[in-house]
């Protein structure tokens, strides 16, 4: 296996995995699970290989992979640069961990259609990795739809009210994807190409810089992506769809879908359009950052009002999307660094929290705040993992959540956008209230007949199964590791991912 082929193996492994699972996954329930884990492990190791390759030549420019050896204007290419190498590693890593974690939950939640579930799982991951790796703007649309269709079916696996919530998501998701497609049509009319790099080369011409069609294309693509990433006020579909679904699906979809959409937004802003176009010609900066500040405040207040653990986390996602969009639109290096870094750290934090809540629900059968009661005694390891995720969400060093907030805050201060700074601090405060309330509930024992009789010490420790604990532990450890290696990630990779004209 030569080194250049890694770029395509990242996508092919889950895609072929989906095929194999749908063909032979029905033979035995273990076949589907093992095939999925194997396919994602291959994909993850390829992302690691690509990441180290890209890091070694960060200053020289991106890696190109031509599908079928057709050169760019005619063929589709994969472009791996420091920005998407990082996102690819995060997506492949988190999905591998969730795949391992899913062994018991899927068996309980969809026992009769286990291999169908895993086929969709693999397809969703293939779609997300493809979106991240591709260098072709129409190919990106197709892969978005592959990921979206798989996620619709996965979200509907929650049954009951999940169907209606998923239906709302289908309608919103299709509107978003169609807006994007329409925008691509405008760009194609004006430039005659679908390759991102070539499109960007055209975009510097003054005739296109001030063209109305290009402006409309930019607006359509941005609005389409904002619907897809649930950016306030287009977030209405997300809390219901992510809450009602099954544990595994929320663990997989919640950390990845919105983050990949944010990546696509950053890629389109600087890889298709140019930095001066996004920041100066459109003149949207202040308005979008204000909207992001509103998203952060609205998401945080929404989270405070919830009594369902999973629902509370979904509102935190809405706030986190505000962080990243705001950071990307601040218009300075620190803000954009914060946004890119936050894609990675938020993916890990969200995965950690959703998996911990999933494990608690798995053992207690409850999803309300009361499910946390006595959790530190009954499930000490899961509780510790939940604490790490919660502290990262609040932004306490040395977790990665602290560093992304640090960059976002310094970006906000440098841009003089104090509304965004206040919103960030407000959201940290709200997160502190939210999580310390949960920690408090968790420390008190169950109020049942036994504890009244004075038998406090005889609490039975009932931990989640090992197949759930190990991936959760790795995620929690990664939160700390990524936090401790922040300076190396930023100076070795993200600095090269910033568009020319922005320097730290």
């Amino acid at each position: 296996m030569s080194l250049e082929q890694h770029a395509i193996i990242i996508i092919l492994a889950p895609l072929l995995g989906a095929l194999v699972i749908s063909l032979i996954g029905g033979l035995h329930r273990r076949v589907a699970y093992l095939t999925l884990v194997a396919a994602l492990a291959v994909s993850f190791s390829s992302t690691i290989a690509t990441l180290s390759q890209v890091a070694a030549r960060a200053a020289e420019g991106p890696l190109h992979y031509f599908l079928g050896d057709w050169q760019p204007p005619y063929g589709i290419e994969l472009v791996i640069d420091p920005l998407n190498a990082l996102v690819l590693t995060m997506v492949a890593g988190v999905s591998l961990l969730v795949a391992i974690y899913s062994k018991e939950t899927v068996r309980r939640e969809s026992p009769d259609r286990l291999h169908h579930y895993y086929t969709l799982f693999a397809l969703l991951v293939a779609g997300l990795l493809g979106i991240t790796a591709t260098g072709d703007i129409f190919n990106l649309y197709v892969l978005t739809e592959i990921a979206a269709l798989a996620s619709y079916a996965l979200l509907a696996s929650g049954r009951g009210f999940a169907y209606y919530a998923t239906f709302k998501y289908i309608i919103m998701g299709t509107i978003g994807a169609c807006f994007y497609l329409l925008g691509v049509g405008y760009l194609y009319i004006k430039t005659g190409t679908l390759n991102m790099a070539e499109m960007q080369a055209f975009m510097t011409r003054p005739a296109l810089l001030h063209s109305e069609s290009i402006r409309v294309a930019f607006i359509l693509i941005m609005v389409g992506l904002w619907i897809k990433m649930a950016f306030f006020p287009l977030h209405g579909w997300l809390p219901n769809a992510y809450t009602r679904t099954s544990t595994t699906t929320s663990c997989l979809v919640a950390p990845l879908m919105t983050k990949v959409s944010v990546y696509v937004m950053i890629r389109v802003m600087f890889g298709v359009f140019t930095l001066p176009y996004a920041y100066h010609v459109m003149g949207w900066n202040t308005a979008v950052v204000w909207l992001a500040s509103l998203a952060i405040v609205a998401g945080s207040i929404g989270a405070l009002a919830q009594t369902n653990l999973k629902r509370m986390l979904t509102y935190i996602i809405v706030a986190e999307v505000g962080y990243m969009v705001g950071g990307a639109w601040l218009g300075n290096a620190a803000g954009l660094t914060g946004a890119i870094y936050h894609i990675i750290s938020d993916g890990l934090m969200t995965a950690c929290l959703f998996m911990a809540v999933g494990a608690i629900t798995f053992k207690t059968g409850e999803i309300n705040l009361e499910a946390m009661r006595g959790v530190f005694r009954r499930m000490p390891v899961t509780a510790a993992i939940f604490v790490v995720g919660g502290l990262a969400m609040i932004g306490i060093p040395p977790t990665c959540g602290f560093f992304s907030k640090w960059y976002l805050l310094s970006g906000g201060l440098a841009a003089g956008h104090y509304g965004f700074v206040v919103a960030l601090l407000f959201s940290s405060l709200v997160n502190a209230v939210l999580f310390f309330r949960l920690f408090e509930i968790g420390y008190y024992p169950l109020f049942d007949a036994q504890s009244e009789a004075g038998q406090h010490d005889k609490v039975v420790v009932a931990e989640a199964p090992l197949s759930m604990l190990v991936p959760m532990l790795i995620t929690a450890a990664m939160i700390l590791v990524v936090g401790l290696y922040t300076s190396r990630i930023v100076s070795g990779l993200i600095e090269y991912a910033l568009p020319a004209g922005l320097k730290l």
Partner: protein
Amino acid sequence: MEDLFNYIIGRYNYWAAIILLLIGLYGMIAKNNLLKKVIGMTIFQAAIILFYVSIGDKRGATIPILDHGHGTHQAIEAAAYANPLPHVLMLTAIVVGVSTLGVALAILQKIYRVHGTIEEDEILETIDQ
């Protein structure tokens, strides 16, 4: 007046696409019946497909197939052939549209089994209870 007339008639393909787009969007957002929302979604996608197909067209152009394309090395006049690329792109978009429609209809069926109705206000009443 004549300018306005030319402005509308000269770009009639765009106007047709925009009108269909708005009908579809209206159906998706304003209709109470979920099946009508799906119909709106289909119209919305069809509008974009028509938009793409129309931009590949050229006046007096023919289908992009070369007679005796192999072996001869004469110059090919691009203006005589319609642009095949948008059409090919739309083949993919049609497949995507059909899959989305399939998933939407399957979930609609499930909604009907759970809630006993596909009217949005009635579903919301059952969820509140």
